[in-house]
């Protein structure tokens, strides 16, 4: 079911309040920019929350060096368009040691190139709060996440001992060693995000729209061969198929879906019918039943 205008407005108001509270409470907040649709919505909300003033957050992208090429192009266009400062951080040691999605297990790759990279960057720039576009409907450990979610030293999440969060009275205070993660669109669902993008004409990455793309099959997963680094099997040649992506990440770990949806209207139609959980297309989440919870306790977003 597509959300009504009243639902979207109520969600938007709550998110704007959270973003303003973050800007007012922290001395050095950063907005994690993953280039995906949720980040696009977050950025738009930030613009709305502070207009006519500038967005008071630095953006940061954790680049694993395995993102889709179109993600990087899009990222640089958006930064230009919104006039925000962007920090790009890569775990250089991991890259030097040759950690790739193929050299080790997916979970180890994610830990080194995403979680460790994020922790490194947060420490390096001494950010006291990091804003992310995670939603509670994405995954069951995220369903338990607070809006203002404290991280203990070492960026650890303690799911069993979360700070109580009552009403809209957000406690943004930090004890020494703690940092904050902030999730302004916690209560949004996937379809809300799409409808909001549609209603507000928000720019999103072309990879979300169906198009002929070179792909190979890995089990039942459709993988786009985005560059020559992808290890093909002997005599394997990528074929073109009309696909799109429901979530964006590292291209070897992000499966596409067969689709003809090449406009926002048709995507909305597709989403409200297909009813497949969004993260089913992410190989990194399927690693173990509770892998998101485990990753989050280690500092993953």
């Amino acid at each position, binding site marked *: 079911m597509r959300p*009504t205008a009243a639902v979207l407005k*109520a969600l938007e108001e709550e998110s704007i309040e959270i973003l303003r509270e973050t800007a007012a409470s922290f001395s050095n907040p950063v907005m994690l920019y993953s280039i995906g649709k949720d980040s696009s919505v977050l950025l738009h909300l930030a613009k709305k929350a502070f207009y006519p003033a500038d967005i008071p957050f630095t953006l940061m992208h954790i680049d694993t060096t395995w993102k889709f090429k179109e993600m990087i192009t899009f990222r640089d266009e958006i930064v230009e368009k919104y006039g925000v400062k962007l920090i790009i951080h890569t775990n250089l040691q991991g890259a030097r040691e040759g950690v790739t999605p193929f050299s080790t297990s997916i979970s180890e790759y994610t830990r080194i190139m995403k979680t460790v990279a994020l922790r490194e960057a947060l420490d390096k720039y001494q950010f006291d709060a990091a804003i992310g576009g995670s939603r509670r409907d994405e995954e069951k450990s995220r369903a338990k996440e607070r809006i203002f979610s404290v991280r203990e030293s070492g960026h650890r999440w303690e799911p069993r001992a979360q700070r109580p969060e009552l009403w809209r009275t957000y406690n943004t205070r930090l004890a020494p060693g703690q940092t904050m993660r902030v999730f302004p669109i916690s209560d949004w669902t996937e379809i809300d995000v799409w409808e909001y993008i549609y209603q507000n004409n928000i720019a999103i990455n072309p990879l979300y729209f169906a198009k002929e793309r070179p792909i190979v099959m890995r089990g039942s997963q459709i993988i786009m061969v985005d560059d020559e680094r992808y290890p093909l099997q002997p005599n394997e040649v990528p074929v073109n198929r009309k696909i799109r992506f429901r979530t964006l990440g590292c291209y070897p770990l992000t499966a596409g879906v067969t689709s003809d949806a090449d406009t926002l209207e048709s995507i909305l139609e597709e989403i409200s019918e297909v009813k497949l959980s969004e993260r089913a297309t992410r190989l990194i989440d399927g690693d173990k039943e509770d892998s998101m919870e485990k990753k989050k306790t280690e500092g993953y977003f």
Partner: protein
Amino acid sequence: MSSALTRLVTCGSVDDGKSTLIGRLLVETDSVPHDTVDSARKVRRTGSTIPAGEIDFSLLTDGLEAEREQGITIDVAYRSMNLRNGNRLIIADAPGHEQYTRNMVVAASRANIALVLVDATRGIRTQTLRHTAICSLAGVDRVVIVINKLDAVDYREDVYQDLVKTLQEKVAHLTLKELIATPVSALAGDNVSFGSKNLPWYKGPTLLEAIENWEPVANNNSEQHFRVQSIARAENFRGVSGTLESGTLRVGEELKVLPSKLSVKVSEIIKYQERKNEIHAGETAILIFEREVDVSRGDVLVSSETQDDCTDRFISNLVWLDEEPLVLSRSYLLQTGSTMVPAIVTAIKGKQKIVEGGTEVAKSLHMNEIGEVEIATDRPVALRNYLLSRNTGNFILIDRKSMQSSGAGMFLHTLRRSSNITRHNYEITSAERALLKNQKAKVIWFTGLSGSGKSTIANQVEKELFAQGKHCYILDGDNVRLGINKDLGFTPEDRAENVRRVAEIARLFVDAGLIVIVALVSPFEVDRQAARALFEPDQFRQVWVNTSEEVCAERDPKGLYRKAKSGELPNLTGVGQEYEPPINPELVIDGDRDLALNVAEVMRLLS
């Protein structure tokens, strides 16, 4: 306020069939991805009796690893569900066990509707009553008693009616806004989203209807309450951004700024790139005033006709959330909206007997306990009666050291003791009084163990200052306990009060233009921080006399360590009670060193 987003809390334990009920509601409203539902058809828990191919609804709502291991819910999980009228339901699934009462309060704090589950085969239990009482305390608008597992009692009307009647009698003492009941079988699917042939005697709404037909009470006359979150500044632009908590706000209206009571006139209401004529409760906006007025984050704008403005002494319900128990007289940070003020709990009127009703005497509140308390704040805050206005009547108490949200408060009424007192400003200022004495008024605060040498150093420092012609006074811990503080003992509560009074006296003396030397064990960081907060940053100097415990015990000038060792003195700092090292002292000196050296260092700090 619109009901586009309706919030619901579910109370009950796994045994009551709560997970199954929520799972069914989600599936029957098509709010779960289909692959998730498929997996709930295939996966089975050990010992599950659900036939293969059927959906195990309870699998759809399980959360954390620890929860699956223990088979219980520990923390609140949030889920979204579509209602057939286009509204969105946000479900806060709360844990049922008593040790997670605080999480239940978290979930209930925003809820409009509560589902309290009762297992028809087990009857009304203590837990049911506790959940209902918490919903009442949290101000939930509609409480739905869901009598579940009707299939297991052959769908008998008398069983259902008896349970409803028993419950109504047992919760009669609560102030519930609305209490309704409905029979269901979550497992068999009776009367959840669809009516049931098995319950021909039941004429009321299905559970889903009971959720969908809730509407907020329309209150167009409710009082305006705009919280200032921040000042919005851009080129040639200055406005205040915030949220309207209640009422309607229009361009051209006169408002009163609290706590300053200045008046402002709204000339523009801005939402992003649009100008609005009015905004309604729940909306954010940037307001521009006709002329520039001193307004800052934490201020509240109310109608210029509002009579009862602010309070600094009041009665409130307080739910304790922290593993560290409440300490009376200790300074906490009170937060309501964006407003933050230091506050102390001055008295516990009574601890609620949540299940039986009534109160009992209590000296402290421990985690999950609820009390009616008296609170005093450093500055007046705008609070309204919680049951009338939840958004403007709530606050939290934050521990100044751990920064934990330690208490959840629901404002009841003000105490007209000091709210009628306005500070009178005399024309001669503190700075002028100090100038007459040719000095700068300040506090030098010595903290450290008993026997560390605080008084000895303080004495020497005063002699040096005296010789320079400075006007000083020593507030010595032992001396004040012989007089103004002779009613106080050595419990953490009394120590907090001891520090508070000494700090307030020091403040008066600083106002008189004096240099005040405090020599006080003051073992707890929060209390010292609260003392520091009373002064300007350049007026307060903290010196930690860090003498090792062995040296202090060996010196033992008052024989206290000997008494503590023999058990006569239970609360001696460093022995029976902890001494918390200061986090940011201006100076740390070792009391075991040469006295002249230490005094010289202190004098350097003062110059």
